[in-house]
C-alpha cells in the first residue's frame, strides 16, 4: 500500500493523464455493475435467507413451547395510542428487537403460551436465550440458547447438556428461579448448575429471571391473550 504513489507516477508517465470526466465515468460504470451484481444476488437469495431465518426462529419457538403449531410475533410499545389501546400488538415485520416476543397456538388456533427472549452477559460474551412460558400454569416449558460464545466443552453445555436443558421443562415460575451447585437442588424453583460451568448456568438463570420480570407485568390477563391473526406461521409451511 505504501508504494501506491510511486506506482501511479510510473503508470501515468506511460499513459496519458485521463480527464476527470473519465474518472467519474469509470467509477460510475463500476458502481453500476457492482450494484447490478449485488442486487441480483440479493434478489436471488432473498427468499431462502428469509426462510432460513424464519425457520430457525420457528423451530426454536416450537421447541420451547410444546404442542404448538402456529405462532405470531408480538410487539410491546409504551405508548398505548395504538388500536384498542393495546400495548401488546401482533406485528408482521421482519427482524427482532428487545420489545418483541412470541405467542404460540395449537392446531385449533387456541392460545397456549408465550416464547420470551432475553439476553445478558455470560462467561465470555452475551448469551441470547429463548424460553417458553405457560401463563395459565405459571410454568416454564423449555429453554433454548439462540446465541452464545461460551467456552466449548464447558460453557457450551448450557445447550449441549440435555440434563441441564431438561431442567427447564415444566419448571414452576412463581418467584425467581435459582441455580445451585449440582446435586444441591432442594426446592422446586431450583436448577442444578453444570459442574465446571456454574457461571454460565447462573447466567442463563439470571437472564431468564430478568426477562420474565420484564415481561410478566406486560402480559394481558388470562383469557385476554392476543388472538391468532389471519396470516400466521405454522409448523409446516413458512408464511400462509
Amino acid at each position, binding site marked *: 500500500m505504501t508504494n501506491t504513489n510511486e506506482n501511479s507516477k510510473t503508470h501515468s508517465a506511460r499513459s496519458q493523464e485521463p480527464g476527470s470526466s473519465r474518472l467519474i465515468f469509470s467509477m460510475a460504470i463500476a458502481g453500476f455493475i457492482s450494484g447490478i451484481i449485488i442486487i441480483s444476488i440479493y434478489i436471488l437469495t432473498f427468499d431462502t435467507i428469509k426462510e432460513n431465518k424464519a425457520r430457525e426462529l420457528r423451530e426454536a419457538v416450537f421447541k420451547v413451547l410444546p404442542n404448538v403449531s402456529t405462532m405470531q410475533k408480538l410487539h410491546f410499545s409504551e405508548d398505548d395510542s395504538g388500536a384498542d389501546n393495546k400495548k401488546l400488538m401482533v406485528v408482521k415485520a421482519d427482524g427482532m428487537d428487545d420489545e418483541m416476543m412470541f405467542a404460540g397456538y395449537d392446531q385449533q388456533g387456541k392460545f397456549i403460551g408465550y416464547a420470551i427472549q432475553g439476553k445478558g452477559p455470560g*462467561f465470555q460474551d452475551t448469551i441470547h436465550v429463548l424460553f417458553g412460558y405457560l401463563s395459565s400454569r405459571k410454568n416454564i416449558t423449555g429453554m433454548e440458547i439462540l446465541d452464545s460464545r461460551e*467456552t466449548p*466443552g*464447558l460453557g457450551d453445555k448450557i445447550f449441549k447438556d440435555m440434563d441441564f436443558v431438561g431442567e427447564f421443562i415444566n419448571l414452576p415460575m412463581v418467584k425467581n428461579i435459582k441455580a445451585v*451447585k449440582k446435586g444441591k437442588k432442594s426446592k422446586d424453583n431450583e436448577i442444578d448448575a453444570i*459442574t*465446571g460451568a*456454574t*457461571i454460565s448456568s447462573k447466567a442463563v438463570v439470571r437472564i431468564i429471571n430478568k426477562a420474565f420480570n420484564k415481561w410478566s407485568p406486560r402480559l394481558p390477563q388470562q383469557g385476554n391473550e392476543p388472538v391468532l391473526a389471519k396470516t400466521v406461521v405454522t409448523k409446516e409451511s413458512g408464511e400462509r
Partner: protein
Amino acid sequence: MKNKDPRLLLQSAPLLRQELTTPAAMKDVWIALLPASCAALWFFGLSALLILSVSIAGAVLTEWVFTDKEKRRFALSDTSAGLTGLLLGLTLPPGLPLWMAFLGGAVSIGLGKVIWGGLGTNIFNPALLGRAFLLGTFPIAMTTWGAAGGPGEFFQIHSSNLALPFMQGQYDALSAATPLGLMKFEHQSTALGALFMGNTAGSIGETSSLLLLLGGIFLLLRRSIDWRIPAAIFLTAALFSLIMFISNGDVYPSPLFTLFSGGLLLGTFFMATDPVTSPLTPKGCWIFGIGIGFLVVLIRLYGGLPEGMLYAILLMNAATPLIDRYTQPRIFGRKG
C-alpha cells in the same frame, strides 16, 4: 620485552563480591518452599510427590533439550528450571493426571523461558504461564479438587493421576470445593484455623498459610525478595476486601479470608516476587504489588473465576516493562 608479569591476573575492580550468588538465591527459594512441600505430602500423600516430581522433570528436561550443546554443562546448574517446575507443581490440584503436570512443566520452560532467550529474559512468570496454559487447556481437570487427606492415606494415589497421556482422568469420588469456590458460589466462609493449618481442598502447595508465611518470612529476612511487593499486595488486597466486606458481609469475604485463602500467599511470596518478572525499581515494585492486590480481589469478587492470583500476576508481568520505564529513580543530583 614483557609488559605484563605472567603470574598476574588483570581483573578490573571491584574485586570484592557479596556472598550471594544467583544459584544461591535460587537455593534459598527451594529452602523456603520446603515446609510447604512437606505439608503437601502430609495432606495429599504420594499423589503430591508424584505431581511435584513429574512437573519438575518436565521443566528440567525441556530446559536441557533446548540448551545449546556447549552450554549444557551449566544449563541446569542454577536450578532455576527445577524451581519453576516445583512452583508449577505446587499450584496444581492433587488429582491432576500426571501427563498434564509433565506437559505443564514443559510448557512453562518452553514457552515461558526458552523462547525468550533463557534465564532472566522472560517477561512472564514461567511457572504461572504453565499453569495458565494448563487451566485454559484442561479447565475441568484443573478445577477438580481432592479433599485433603491425612497421613493414613499417604499411599493412596488418586486414580485420576494415572490417566494415560492425552486421556481423561477417572476421578474417584473425591471432588471437593476449595475455600474460594465455596465462598464464590455458596457464600460460605471457611474457618481461619483450617486455612492456617492447610487441611482444606486446594492446590498442592497453597493450603497451609502458616508454612507459606514461614517460608516468606525466611526469604524476607534473607533479603532474597523485595519486601515492597508482598507489603503492597497485602495492604491493597486487605483494604479492597475490607471495603467490600463492610459494604456487604454476607456476600463478600473478610480481609483475613482474602489473605489466607487460595494461592494468595504462595503467589505473593514466591511468584509475584520472582525477580526476573517483577519491576526493578522500588516505586515500580509498589505499583506492581498494588496492581496485583487490586486485580486479585477484582477477579475473585467480580470475575468468572473463583481465584485470580494467577491472572493478576501474569497481567502485571505484562505491564512490568511499562512500569519499569516510567518509574526510573531520580538520579542523584538531577531533577525529575
